[in-house]
């Protein structure tokens, strides 16, 4: 994205998403979701350029809007040859047991993961996920983490979950009031003075590091 403007929400932002996971963080109303909408070309910018691949898969805050079939099996039927392939695919993420479940009866966490899996099933060239950890239990959060990390395509997420962002992202943009106020690797951003101006609670690892009187170089 080059100098992209959209109404009063996004004000001249520049974002480059390479391979790996790019995260956009910021307070409510800072323009994160609008930026994702601009990336997926669901919104047209007033000014600036958005250069994206042809096929961008996406999963949004309400995962239930993605479902068009009654069961999980039927959702994936068009993307795979047979039931066995679908079982294997779901099995990779420990979700084989959901194959015959009604999509609209899935829990929020399960629905979110299935919605992300649908978004990647049509072989997109990039993936956009808005608030990937919303409504997820600890186990599901771990699952989404592994799922997103295993992607071979550029992944862009917007999230409030800073511990999650610190764990999975390769590059982070911090948005506030439509502007990008900081960017860099997750740790660089969380130690940036501009980030502390947002008065966000720091990720747990950073807090522990501070208590030990150390600046973390990596979370590994």
């Amino acid at each position: 994205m080059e100098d992209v403007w959209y109404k009063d929400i996004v004000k001249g932002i520049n974002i480059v998403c390479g391979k790996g996971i790019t995260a956009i963080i910021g307070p409510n109303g800072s323009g994160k979701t609008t930026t994702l909408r601009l990336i997926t070309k669901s919104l047209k910018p007033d000014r600036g350029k958005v250069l994206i691949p042809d096929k961008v898969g996406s999963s949004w805050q309400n995962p239930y809007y993605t479902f068009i079939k009654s069961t999980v099996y039927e959702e994936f039927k068009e993307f795979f040859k047979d039931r066995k392939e679908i079982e294997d695919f779901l099995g990779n993420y420990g979700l084989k047991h959901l194959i015959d479940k009604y999509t609209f009866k899935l829990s929020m966490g399960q629905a979110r993961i299935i919605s992300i899996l649908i978004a990647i099933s049509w072989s997109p060239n990039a993936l956009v996920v808005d608030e990937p950890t919303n409504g997820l239990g600890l186990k599901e959060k771990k699952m989404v983490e592994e799922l997103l990390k295993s992607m071979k395509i550029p992944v862009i997420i917007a999230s409030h979950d800073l511990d999650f962002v610190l764990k999975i992202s390769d590059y982070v943009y911090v948005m506030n009031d439509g502007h990008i106020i900081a960017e860099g690797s997750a740790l660089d951003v969380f130690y940036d003075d501009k980030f502390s101006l947002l008065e966000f609670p720091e990720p747990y690892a950073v807090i522990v590091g501070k208590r030990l009187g150390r600046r973390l170089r990596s979370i590994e």
Partner: protein
Amino acid sequence: MSRLKIHIHPLVGIIAIAWVMFALYVNHIVSALILSSILFTYLILTLPSEQIRRLAVLYLWITIPPYVLLAIIYGPIEAVELILRLISITITFTSALQLIKPIELSYVTSKLGLPQLTALAIPMVIKLSDYMGYSISETVVAMRGRGLKGRKLLLNIPIPLVVHVINSSAHFAEALAQKRFDKVSTAYGKPKVGFTDVVVICYIILNAVFLVMKWI
């Protein structure tokens, strides 16, 4: 940000709609247009600028394509008259219905003998139309995210929407139950007559008197 809190009495709203339809029926387009303009002015004073912009876009869609079509069929002058009628009806309906408080409309419709559920459902549908628009746009974005485009996208949109409506109704019922809907009624609010109502009613009466004198 909304600026003023203006509401009209549900009966005044219904009378205003009836008057506009009657005025158009007896070819008093100017009278109908003035009344719709009064209501629209009140609406503009009430709504946030973003909603006014959306309404303006809606009005443009309602007027310009039909005008082009009618101009081709009946000629440009005839088309103007037809479009003015259309604008008058659209503005009156949207303005009057937006200016009525849902709980007050529930009160009036329940007095007309409608069951409580229907009485509550009518204003809810009117007031939730904006939310429905939002749901549609969310669904379109989600459908694109799973690779659906064009005809396939249009064919599949109703599925998540219908489910969403059902789920939303369940959540709404849950919220009402939490508000002790069974013991303290949250559905009705007895309407009061205000200055806005007096203006609209006076205008209608004056016009009616003028019309009757003209006929005599």
